């Protein structure tokens, strides 16, 4: 059976360095496909999608809210050709009711152990409108190595440099953070994968650089330490979200290859300052993730925050404006207060303001968002700061013999497209 699996494109944020990482959802999904299914994957961000009647069955995997309208348009085209379309992935779950209007089926929840039934139903012409496993997560031991073989790997290089591969070691989160929907998507319970399964998958990955996409690694200290200990011999270099700031944990993380972490910076406190210092003391770089437009931020607060970021020597910073995604407390609060004025999902890219901020106009917040990017990167551009981080990891890889040289055959390409020559 020919199964066409598609990852829809989305519009990138204006003015930011464009890069594409190999998607994670589709490769995790593909690992559960029955053996008789022949999968053909297209990441529309890096290659053109040809819509024709060659597939038997079509799957659309969506991660971001800014993908949903494009995903629905693709499905509409295939359905006009008489093809059945199933949707899955994070933003399918966030936008399930609307997605049902454009699909033959939606899959809600996690796939492990479930796709055999879905494909069997398809073959019997008995595809269900909804496969709902939201309240019934699978046994974490069932999560096997992701099917990265479905990716066209050469598309994830920039001028010969390979992008990180995405990987996950746990699901779910005990917290209920204001802008986050993980509570709805993965449940309120932290569910770590068994360490031996994690190591099995990591050992099979040919990419030495990873992004561990778990919401937070800092939810179970003993598991976290065990994970890092198990990772040390693998000599991978990785990026992740928060790690616990205990010295013992950070020391193990550094030995396990922690390259840099994403750290939310929400105020100018000593707590944040010390945390960044602790990471740096262990040789772990920090990319600050800064959410602008929260109800406790005035214009002065935002400007002070940006000054603070420069003062604490963050290695990189990523600024976003609050996007009230469905199934977040932010969405609930703003909905109650009738402050959301833009319901076009294409605009929910965390760069556009879609609600009325409390202490300023939407226009002022947009202005401050640009001010934040411009001010932080004024003296040293983002590309230079990224190059500094890359140099650090290259040095470490050269020291431990894991360095994979730049691909000379791809030096004139960026994500599958020829790089325009500068005359």
């Amino acid at each position, binding site marked *: 059976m020919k199964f066409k699996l598609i990852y829809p494109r989305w519009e990138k944020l204006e003015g930011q360095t464009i890069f594409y990482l190999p998607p994670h959802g589709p490769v995790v999904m593909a690992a559960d496909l029955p053996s008789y299914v022949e999968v053909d994957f297209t990441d529309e961000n890096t290659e053109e999608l040809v819509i024709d009647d060659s597939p038997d069955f079509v799957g659309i995997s969506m991660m971001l809210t800014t993908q949903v309208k494009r995903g629905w348009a693709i499905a509409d085209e295939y359905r006009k050709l008489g093809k059945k379309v199933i949707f899955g992935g994070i933003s399918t779950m966030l936008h*399930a009711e609307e997605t049902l209007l454009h699909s033959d089926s939606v899959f*809600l929840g996690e796939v492990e152990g479930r796709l055999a039934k879905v494909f069997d139903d398809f073959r019997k012409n008995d595809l269900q409108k*909804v496969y*709902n496993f*939201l*309240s019934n997560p699978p046994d974490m031991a069932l999560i096997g190595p992701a099917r990265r073989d479905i990716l066209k790997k050469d598309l994830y290089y920039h001028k010969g440099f390979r992008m990180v591969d995405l990987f996950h070691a746990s699901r779910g989160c*005990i917290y*209920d953070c*204001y802008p986050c929907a993980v509570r*709805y998507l993965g*449940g*309120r319970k932290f569910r770590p994968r068994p360490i031996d399964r994690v190591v099995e998958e990591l050992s099979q990955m040919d990419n030495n650089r990873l992004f561990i996409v778990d919401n937070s690694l800092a939810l179970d200290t003993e598991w976290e330490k065990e994970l890092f200990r198990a990772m040390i011999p693998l000599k991978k270099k990785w990026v992740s979200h928060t790690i616990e700031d205990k010295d013992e944990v950070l020391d193990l993380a550094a030995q396990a290859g922690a390259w840099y972490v994403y750290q939310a910076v*929400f105020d100018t406190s000593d707590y944040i300052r010390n945390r960044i210092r602790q990471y740096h003391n262990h040789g772990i770089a920090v990319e600050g993730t800064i959410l602008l437009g*929260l*109800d*406790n931020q005035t214009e002065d607060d935002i400007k002070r925050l940006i000054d603070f970021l420069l003062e604490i020597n963050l290695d990189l910073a990523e600024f976003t404006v609050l996007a009230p995604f469905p*199934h977040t*407390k*932010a969405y*609930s*609060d703003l*909905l*109650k*207060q009738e402050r959301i004025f833009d319901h076009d999902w294409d605009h929910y890219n965390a760069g556009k303001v879609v609600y009325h901020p409390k202490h300023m106009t939407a226009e002022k917040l947009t202005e401050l968002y640009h001010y934040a990017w411009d001010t932080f990167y004024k003296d040293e551009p983002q590309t230079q700061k990224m190059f500094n981080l890359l140099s650090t990891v290259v040095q470490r890889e050269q020291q431990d013999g894991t360095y994979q040289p730049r691909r000379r055959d791809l030096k004139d390409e960026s994500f599958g497209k020829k790089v325009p020559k500068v005359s």
Partner: protein
Amino acid sequence: MELNPEFDRYMDRYFDYKGQWNCPSRCGLKILTRKDGKTLAIATEIYRQNPGTPVTEWVAPLATQVMTELEETPENFIFVEHTPDLKSKLTFYGESFDLVSFGWDADKFINPKWTRLTSDQVNEMMEK
């Protein structure tokens, strides 16, 4: 409805409901029959103790279910949504109360609208 008098002023039992996509969900609940004969329901979001859909996201079906189980009528039923103070550093997790008004469609509430209340206003509503 499981009654627990040790909770607090605005919540004396848990209420289990099927949330969105049939997710098992739970909130805190207090039911008062007021002196004026109206029934006041206060539904409390209990965050980590709620395994499923938050009160706000499911407020119309939840209010319908509570009212139906109480054998009340829409005209005689007042619904208040409560989020407790989580003692967080972040201001979004402070205590809040909203009076929720609805439209009525045959046998269910629809189109919720929230009006922010102070705790004094809620206390006054409870004393009426």
